[in-house]
C-alpha cells in the first residue's frame, strides 16, 4: 500500500548564516502492506512529521520514490497530489486542525466537498460512529479536545480513504480520550484500513511493547545532518539503528532516533 524508497527531504536551514540545509530524512526506505497499522516513533526533530507529510502528499521529497496504492506520487503535479489527498488519504492531526468557524458537521462535510459532493446524512452518520451525533451543530470551541479529535477522525474517514495518517493523534488528549481515540483507530484497523501513526514518547511505548511479539526487523536511518556549502557535511548526530520492536496498539513501530538517543 505504501512504499518509500531512498527518500530524502532537505530543508533550508534558516538559522544558518551560511544558508546550509537540514536533512530531515535521509535515504529512508519503508514498506507498509495493505491493512497494516504502523507506528512511527521517535523524539522531537527525528523527522516523524516530515515522513507523514511526505506519505500524505503534503510535502515533496528532495529525492527518492513514494508509492501509494501502486502509484509513484513523488513527481506528481500539485493538482494530482490534491486528488490523491482527497481520495486516498485521511488525516488525523495532533492539533485537530478543524476550521474554527464551521460546525462539527460542516467540518466533516468540507472534506466531502473537496472530494466530490456533500451528503449531510452521511456526514451525520460519520459523526454518529465517533459518538458525536448530538454535537454536530457545535463549533470546535464548544467541543472538548477529545471531541474535536473525534470530529477530526470522522472527517478523515468520510471519504473512505485507503490510508489513514495520524500524526500524534492522542498527543493533546487525557487518558480517557486517548483510549477513546485509540479504540476508534483499532476499529478502523479491523475494518482493513492502512494506518500510519506517529507517536512521540518512545519510553512509554517501549514499556508497552511486549518482548518477543515483534519480528525484530532493523531499519537503518541516519538522522538530521546539516550541510554547509563550503565545509561539506557536518554530521550532527550519529547513525542510529531503528528497531521495529513489537506490536504496539495492534500495529508495528518504526523507531526514528533523536539526537540524544543512544540507539
Amino acid at each position, binding site marked *: 500500500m505504501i512504499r518509500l524508497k531512498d527518500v530524502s527531504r532537505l530543508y533550508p536551514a534558516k538559522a544558518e548564516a551560511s544558508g546550509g540545509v537540514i536533512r530531515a530524512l535521509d535515504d529512508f526506505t519503508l514498506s507498509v502492506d495493505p491493512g497494516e497499522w504502523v507506528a512511527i516513533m521517535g523524539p522531537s526533530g527525528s523527522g516523524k*512529521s*516530515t515522513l507523514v*507529510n511526505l506519505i*500524505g502528499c*503534503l*510535502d515533496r521529497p528532495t529525492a527518492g520514490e513514494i508509492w501509494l496504492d501502486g502509484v509513484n506520487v513523488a513527481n506528481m503535479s*500539485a*493538482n494530482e497530489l*490534491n*486528488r490523491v*489527498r*482527497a*481520495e486516498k488519504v485521511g*488525516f488525523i*492531526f495532533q*492539533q485537530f*486542525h*478543524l*476550521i*474554527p*468557524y*464551521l460546525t462539527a458537521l460542516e467540518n466533516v462535510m*468540507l*472534506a466531502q466537498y*473537496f*472530494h466530490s459532493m456533500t451528503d449531510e446524512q452521511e456526514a451525520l452518520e460519520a459523526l454518529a460512529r465517533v459518538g458525536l451525533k448530538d454535537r454536530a451543530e457545535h463549533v470546535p470551541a464548544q467541543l472538548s479536545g477529545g471531541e474535536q479529535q473525534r470530529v477530526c477522525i470522522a*472527517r478523515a474517514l468520510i471519504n473512505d480513504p485507503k490510508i489513514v495518517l495520524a500524526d500524534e493523534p492522542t498527543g493533546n488528549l487525557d487518558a480517557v480520550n486517548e483510549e477513546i481515540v485509540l479504540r476508534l483507530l483499532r476499529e478502523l484497523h479491523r475494518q482493513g484500513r492502512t494506518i500510519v501513526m506517529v507517536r512521540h514518547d518512545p519510553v512509554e511505548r517501549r514499556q508497552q511493547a511486549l518482548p518477543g511479539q515483534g519480528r525484530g526487523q532493523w531499519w537503518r536511518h541516519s538522522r538530521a545532518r546539516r550541510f554547509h556549502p563550503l565545509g561539506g557535511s557536518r554530521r550532527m548526530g550519529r547513525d542510529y539503528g531503528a528497531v521495529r520492536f513489537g506490536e504496539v496498539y495492534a500495529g508495528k513501530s518504526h523507531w526514528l532516533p533523536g539526537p540524544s538517543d543512544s540507539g
Partner: protein
Amino acid sequence: MLLRAAILRRGRAASALLAMVVAAAVVTTMLNLFVDVQAKLRKEFRNYGANIVVVARDGQTLAPNVLQKASALLAGRGLAGPFAYAVARTTSGQSIVVSGTDFDQVRNLNRWWSVTAWPTLSQQALVGVRAAALVSPQGKPFDLSFGGRLIHLNPAGILRTGAAEDSRIYLSLRDFEGWTETHPSTIEIAVSGTPEEVTSVMQKLSAALPEADVRPVRQIIEGEARVLGKTRATLLATAILITLTATLCVLATLTGWVFDRRRDFAIMKALGASQRLISGFVAAEAVLLGALGAVIGFGFGLGGAAWIGRANFHAPVIPRFSVFPAILGGSVAVALIAAILPIFLLRRVQPAMILRGE
C-alpha cells in the same frame, strides 16, 4: 462561511469592510456631486441665455418655416425665440430699435432679464429702461412710426439687462409683423447638453437651414465647457485618488485577513482542495465584501452628497441612483484587484509547514 469567519475575526473583517464602505461612500458622494453639479451648472448656463444664434444671410429675413424647423430639430431639448428688428421713430423724431418676439419663449430663454412685468395683451410693450426715459418717462402710452405707419403702445413693464436691450422696445411678434410687415431675422436658441451635444445640434441646424447662418455664442459655450471640464476633471481625479487609496487599504486588510486564515486554507489544501478552488473562495469573499461595501457605502455616500449640497451649494443634491451600478461594479473590481496579492500568497502556502505551526 464568510460571515462566520468574519464574526470570528471581527477586527480584520471590520477593517476590510470599513475600507470598502469608505471608498464606496466617498466615490458615491463624488459621482453624485459630479452628476448633480453638472446638471446644476448647465441649468445656470441656460439662464445666461442662448448658446446658438440663427441669423438670416445678407440682412434678409428668415423664411416663415425656419422657426418650426429649428423647434422640430431641438425635439424638446432646448428653446427657440424669434426676433425681428426695425428702427422706428418716436413722436419727437428720435430713432429707436424695436423688436418683435415671442414673449413666452423669451421669458424662458433669457431668465437673466430683469423685467417688472411681461406684456400679455395686444399692443403692450416691454420697454428697455433707457428707451423708457425717451418714449414714456411717466409710464404713459406712446406712439411709434415706421415707414409712415403709426402704432400706439402701452408700456407693460420695464426691462433691465445692463446691455443693448435696455435701449430697445419689445413687442409681440404678431403686433410687430402687423405694424412693420417685417419678419424675424434672428432666432436665439438655448440647447441643453454637453458642449459636444450643443455642437451636434448646431451641425444639424446648419444642414437643415442652408439659407441661414448658424453661429455659436462662444462666450457661453466655451465658458460652460471650461467650467464643466474643470469640475469634471477635479471630481474624477479625486475619485481616482480615493479609489487608489481604497484599493491599497483593501489590499492591506484583505492580505491580513487571508494571512490570519492561512491555517484554515492549509487545512483545506490538506483535505484535497485545489488551488483554483481556494482562489475561488477568496475571490468570492472579495466579491461579497465589495458588494456589501458598495451597498452600505452608497447609502452613506448619498447622505454625504446631500450634506455637502446643503452646506456648500445651499441646494439639495438629488440622489442619483443611476450611479449605483458604477459604484457596485467599481467596488467589486477594487476588491478583486485587492484579492490578487492574497491569492498569489495563498498559492505559496505549504500546508505541511503551516500545520506544523511554522
